[in-house]
């Protein structure tokens, strides 16, 4: 069994249906990249279930016009086109959204939770960075 799929094979080639079948060599799968142009990132071990060759995607849903997309959760999908559809099925079943973004999980760089102190505590106490710290000068209009 190929753990987490072959990083050199396109994601779309790693079909779940093929799980028990002998793995086809990556080089014989050229046509699959042409039929699924919106191919996701190469399959890596990042976040994937032990037996799942599908890669992980993060889902952002906009609940209504004028609001931002908000992170709703993650899912597995073979490529971007299917990730969007899976997101629609998983995260908008109760009328939650008017727009969806999906992002390959590995494309997201995140801050290090262990560096909380050096990263996020510095602004604390620096009230001069807030407008309310300053008193309004007399005679200045339109403030």
């Amino acid at each position: 069994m190929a753990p987490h799929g072959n990083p050199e094979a396109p994601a779309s080639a790693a079909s779940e249906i093929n799980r028990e079948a002998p793995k086809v060599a990556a080089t014989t799968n050229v046509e699959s990249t042409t039929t699924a142009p919106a191919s996701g990132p190469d399959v890596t071990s990042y976040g994937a279930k032990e037996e799942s060759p599908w890669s992980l995607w993060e889902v952002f849903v906009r609940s209504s016009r004028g609001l931002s997309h908000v992170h709703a959760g993650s899912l597995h999908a073979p490529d971007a086109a299917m990730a969007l559809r899976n997101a629609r099925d998983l995260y908008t079943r109760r009328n939650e959204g008017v727009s969806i973004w999906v992002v390959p999980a590995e494309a997201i760089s995140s801050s290090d939770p262990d560096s909380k102190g050096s990263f996020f505590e510095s602004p604390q106490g620096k009230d001069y960075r807030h407008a309310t710290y300053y008193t309004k000068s007399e005679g200045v209009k339109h403030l």
Partner: protein
Amino acid sequence: MTTEDVSTKDVTTKDTDFAIEGHGDISVGVHGAGASGDGSASATRITPGNALRPEDIALEISRGQVKPTDDVAEFALRIGDDGLILAQRLGHWISRAPELEEDIALGNIALDQLGHARSFLTYAGAAWGKSEDDLAYFRREHEFRSAHLFEQPNGDFAVTIARQFIVSFYQFELYTKLMESTDPTIAAISAKAVKEVDYHRDHSAQWVLRLAGGTDESRARIIQGFKLVWPYVDELFEDDELTTRLAEAGVTVQPSSLRAEFDRLTGNIMAEAELEVPGVPQSLGGGRRGKHSEFLGYILAEMQVLAREHPGASW
């Protein structure tokens, strides 16, 4: 009330006032929580939205505001049974699909189909004083009017996708035409259904492309899948006396008139997937007359057992 709600309503209430009645109970309290522009609105905000529900049709029926003719009821029974039997088939995939995400996708499609079936059966039942449950649980095999395609076994995932591909492209053409029906209830149900079936088309087409273009194994399976279900295509497009009478009355169109567009659109996807339309002989059909394949009896046994063993059971 937000603008989305209003526009949805306009679509579903073109000819009837279904959506206006009977929705207040669910919607009350929800609009306040998630009004547009509310900074605290979250990505998981829940609103039921406004759409035609089987309950709304039942309400109209109980008030004596709608009643189908026998012909219209028989027609509604056919398409209702199609959805009901397919929903039962697809429901079997729950917990068995290749991936969790696909499990939910197939479950959603099954529930959409069940929703359409409930609406059509509720409406059909009004002609005979029967409820949707009477029709679903207390009819016998020869009284079902679904076409053979819908009762065909799930097979492997590729067979299910092949069946779904044919079904959704057929239903899309049918419901699109039925939106123009002279029967306002049929038109309203179809207007709701067509958007959902449009997504089913996309779902199955995406999978046909991926299975056909995936590995040797997946390609062999989708080819085999189409071979198994294609014999049941012709039956979907057969005209008979009922459809002829209803087509003259403008309630529906002749099924045969849907074939050209079905062939064109499915042909486009098949060509893109480099698949050939299987040259298999067509089955005799007969589902519309209550003549079914050996599979329907087993489906009904499983679907009806609880309602028959415990009449009136609810939870």
